[in-house]
């Protein structure tokens, strides 16, 4: 599409010798300017100041271009999806929320002075032995239960050997042959952000969950220095391995996000990906849909193409981007007649391609061996059932609860309530609802749901708005739950107007801790309803200010303009006493002549 150009650009026509109708010349310029043989004309041209593209316009154009680019990418993704089937499996490593390390009494820490929390065994001192910390089992078991796994009555620890300076003993203790949990699953819903093609819900099976040690943290100081912090060595981790059952990049990212949410909700982990408490590896393979099934099989799933592994992805976006890039790389390899090699690849944030780390010939033989010093882990049924009974409600159940008849929240409100502030926002919300019910006991279900919906709006949007504006972190003490319940209740009972309610909330937010009823009384904020006569008088005053608009409403039925008159009435009337619905009703009567 050709748009009229600023004059400065048009002057470029001088470079084209032939004179033609302007539009054609423009077309020609556009073509020429893309020819590399021609010296680029742009730098020689300084547009007149009057021709400068306004910034706003520029931004708009850029946004449009980006959108077009995205659309194009989406279309080409769609096109390749029809030919190629992508298969992805996910492995995540999550740091468990424990006081001690997995095999020593040294404390776990993320912020302490480097190398201040290290036991002899953590540094692999000769003659030191592991001391399994039974308490680390609790968060691990909670995770496995939350992921619907079968907890194994007996599991064992194995050594996975490889040399690296962040691995003091030359091996990592993990559970390779007999993990403590198997055969779980995670359900992903459309509101979890799965790809459109995956419909409303998909289930991803979890092959196993295993306990293992973290490595030391190394910091590189190129060209030749590396500093090692052994505080992290032997921090308990769980590794969660899904089956290769995911077929879209977005769903893979959603899967990791969901796993993180579940692990956080059940109290198994402390921090998420953004703080390095969770890392993900993905394995990626493709196969042509019309061709016979591939000859590779992983974890019992057959017919797949050769897969590659992408290690150490540290954000949800990185997961999605890396999978897209790797999938496209594999497609390009196969389309040009090549063969996908089984190899390990890496991904740098912001890049467009995965990078080969090591190939099959460089594959590490980990020489897994049962650890002869560590007895088998025997987990009793009583412990499992006790943990099951005390497990916090799972995110999916919370969503169902909040969007169900009891609370009646829209999914757009339910999700952030659950996700914000590590669940503190939800807890606060439930406190507010409970307070509302205790203020007005014995209400019917519909009223209770109305309370709950209203409270959701106030907790999330009104209070959230104040927090954002003031740039303050969440703190349930800023507005005591009881105070917010009182505000909502007064509003619901029509004892105050909406604007008053917002005003009161802001006052409490600023630190006024008087009980709400007392504040409303003392500050004279309670609604004293206006009489019909007073409304009529206010309406007539407002109409007299703008008779033309009254006429427009009458003749052109421009009902939207009623709002202006409502606003006038609110402004001229006594503060906090004019109720918008009543004002509008009177206006309709006077202007349109109907009740």
């Amino acid at each position, binding site marked *: 599409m050709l748009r009229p150009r600023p004059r400065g650009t048009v002057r470029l026509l001088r470079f084209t010798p032939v004179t033609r109708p302007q539009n054609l010349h423009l077309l020609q310029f556009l073509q020429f300017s893309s020819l590399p043989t021609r010296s680029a004309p742009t730098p020689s041209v300084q547009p007149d100041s009057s021709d400068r593209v306004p910034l706003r316009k520029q931004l708009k154009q850029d946004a449009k271009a980006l959108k077009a680019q995205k659309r194009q990418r989406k279309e080409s993704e769609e096109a390749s999806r029809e030919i190629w089937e992508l298969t992805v499996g996910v492995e995540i490593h999550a740091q468990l929320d424990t006081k001690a390390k997995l095999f020593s009494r040294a404390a776990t820490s993320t912020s302490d002075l480097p190398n201040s929390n290290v036991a002899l065994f953590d540094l692999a001192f000769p003659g030191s032995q592991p001391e399994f910390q039974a308490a680390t089992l609790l968060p691990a078991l909670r995770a496995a239960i939350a992921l619907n796994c079968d907890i194994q009555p007996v599991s064992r620890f194995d050594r996975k050997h490889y040399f690296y300076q962040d691995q003091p003993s030359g091996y990592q203790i993990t559970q390779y042959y007999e993990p403590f949990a198997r055969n779980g699953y995670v359900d992903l819903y459309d509101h979890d952000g799965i790809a459109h093609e995956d419909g409303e819900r998909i289930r991803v099976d979890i092959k196993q969950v295993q306990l293992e040690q973290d490595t030391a943290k190394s910091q590189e100081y190129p060209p030749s220095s590396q500093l090692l912090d052994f505080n992290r060595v032997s921090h308990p981790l769980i590794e969660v391995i899904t089956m290769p059952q995911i077929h879209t990049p977005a769903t893979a990212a959603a899967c990791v996000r969901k796993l993180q949410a579940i692990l956080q909700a059940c109290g198994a982990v402390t921090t998420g990906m953004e703080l390095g408490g969770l890392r993900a590896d993905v394995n990626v393979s493709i196969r042509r849909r019309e061709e016979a099934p591939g000859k590779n099989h992983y974890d019992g799933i057959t017919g797949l193409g050769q897969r590659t592994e992408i290690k150490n992805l540290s954000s949800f976006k990185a997961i999605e981007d890396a999978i897209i890039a790797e999938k496209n790389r594999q497609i390009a390899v196969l389309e040009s007649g090549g063969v996908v090699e089984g190899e390990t690849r890496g991904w740098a944030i912001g890049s467009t391609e995965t990078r080969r780390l090591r190939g099959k010939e460089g594959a590490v033989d980990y020489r*897994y061996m049962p650890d002869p010093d560590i007895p088998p882990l025997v987990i009793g049924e009583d412990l499992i059932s006790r943990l099951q009974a005390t497990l916090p409600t799972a995110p999916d159940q919370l969503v169902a609860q909040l969007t169900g008849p009891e609370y009646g929240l829209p999914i757009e409100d339910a999700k952030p309530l659950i996700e914000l502030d590590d669940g503190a926002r939800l807890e606060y919300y439930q406190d507010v609802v409970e307070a509302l019910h205790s203020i007005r006991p014995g209400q019917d279900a519909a009223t209770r749901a109305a309370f709950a919906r209203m409270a959701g709006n106030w907790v999330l949007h009104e209070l959230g708005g104040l927090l954002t504006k003031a740039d303050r972190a969440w703190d349930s003490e800023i507005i005591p739950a009881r105070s917010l319940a009182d505000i909502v209740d007064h509003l619901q009972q029509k004892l105050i107007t909406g604007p008053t309610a917002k005003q009161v909330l802001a006052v409490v937010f600023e630190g006024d801790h008087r009980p709400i009823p007392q504040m409303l009384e003392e500050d004279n904020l309670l609604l004293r309803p206006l009489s019909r006569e007073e409304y009529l008088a206010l309406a007539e005053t407002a109409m007299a200010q703008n008779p033309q608009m009254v006429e427009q409403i009458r003749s052109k039925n421009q009902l939207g303009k009623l709002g202006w008159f409502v606003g006038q009435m609110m402004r001229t009337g006594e503060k906090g006493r004019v109720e918008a619905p009543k004002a509008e009703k009177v206006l309709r009567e006077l202007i349109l002549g109907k009740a």
Partner: protein
Amino acid sequence: MSLLREAERCLANQHAHNLNAFITPLSRSGQWLDRVKEADQRSEKGTPKSAVDGRLISIKDNICTRQLPTTCGSGILDKFTSPFNATVVEQLEGAGAVIAGKTNLDEFGMGSHSVHSRFGPVKNIRRDSAGHEISAGGSSGGSAVAVAAEQCYAALGTDTGGSVRLPAAYTGTVGFKPSYGLISRWGVVAYANSLDTVGILGTNTSSVRDIFAILNHHDPRDPTSLSKSSRSRILSQLQTSPLSTRLISKPLRIGVPLEYNISELTPSVRTSWLLSLAHLQKQGHTIHPVSLPTTKHALSAYYVLAPAEASSNLAKYDGVRYGTRGDGPDGNGQPEGVLYSNTRGTGFGAEVQRRILLGTFSLSADSMDNYFIQAQRVRRLVQRDFNAVFSAQHPLFDARGRSDEAAAEAEVDVIVCPTAPSSPPRASDLSSGSKSPLDAYVNDVFTVPASLAGLPAISVPVTVAEPGRDSGVDAGTDGLAGIQVVGQYGDDELVMSVGELLAGSRLSEQ
């Protein structure tokens, strides 16, 4: 003789003999003198802390001591001092004993002649009748020689496949390997954890028994240490009839494993075995042939399993956090290069490198099933063999699977057999390079089965008196041999008692 005089005599012996038994000998002066004097005072008052109060006990140099270096006989730890004491060291010092120094060994315990040490070979105080130097046995050769040369009262060694019993047999001392899990391994540098056992070397069984009593306790820091409840369960079984009557009111049934009568057995060893059995028979005990059919695979299984664990355990020595680094820059100089190849290449001796490679191979994905897994199966069978012949049941195993048929077979209280198939080889034969490393492995053939099964075993010296023309004793030996007693798991006291019946006996065919 006062404890002080005894200690001073040991010290003098340490410096007089050039046997290379110690890597770190006792210093001539020091705090230890006061400790011995204090023990003398307690002894005079009749209030000694223990049977070893004020006595010098040597510690094999793969057992951690805070005061003295712990080198494991390796170049990679040649200047290493541990930041902590092993539990056994704490126990001995708590009982009033004084550490007599750190004894020489095959590097990390890997060897049968104590010649694979960065600090040079250990020399046996004995010579053969032709006056040639002979092997001290290994890997606890330094500890055994220190005891034999009276450089200390007793010594601790470690026994993974025979490393206490073999040098005991070669030096004419008593070497005891208790049941696995009874003595703490905290602070004992791992060679093959599932087999490593702290052992005790002494001139007689009573000193060994005294020291065992001090060390035989549960240690929460060692995850493989037998729990207190298991210990008391085993003890109450042993104190109940019929087990409690053995040797006290009932003669013993002594087992002779037929499979141990191998062609490699030298005539002199066979003679001392036969005379030992006869000696026991004379005391009223009965001799019964038994079959331990898996024995012939035990040695192979051991030399798969022990190197496999060793390759894993020794992966920690990279010179990064402790230990000696190789000269010059390590790795290939590339940023992603390794920090350890040169360090490990120069720090480890040839035998250690051989076993690391062996273990790395047998654990690799392609050979795991054929080697490591197979060897574990053999280990299970070896255990089963022993359980089938002992009248006492294994206290840690389910009694199920033990058929009546097996029970009806000749059941025995202990097994008596040679410790080694031959008398000590000449030192010159070991260093000449004429023998392959595998020849050394054969010396462990009789000691390895008890290690694989975790059973208590003791080697005691017996002497065949007046070796005559007809005795079959080889020319060139003095008639001294090590005889081994093996018992059921937990039967450590009985094993020591039977050892006592034989120890120091002069046996003759008359």
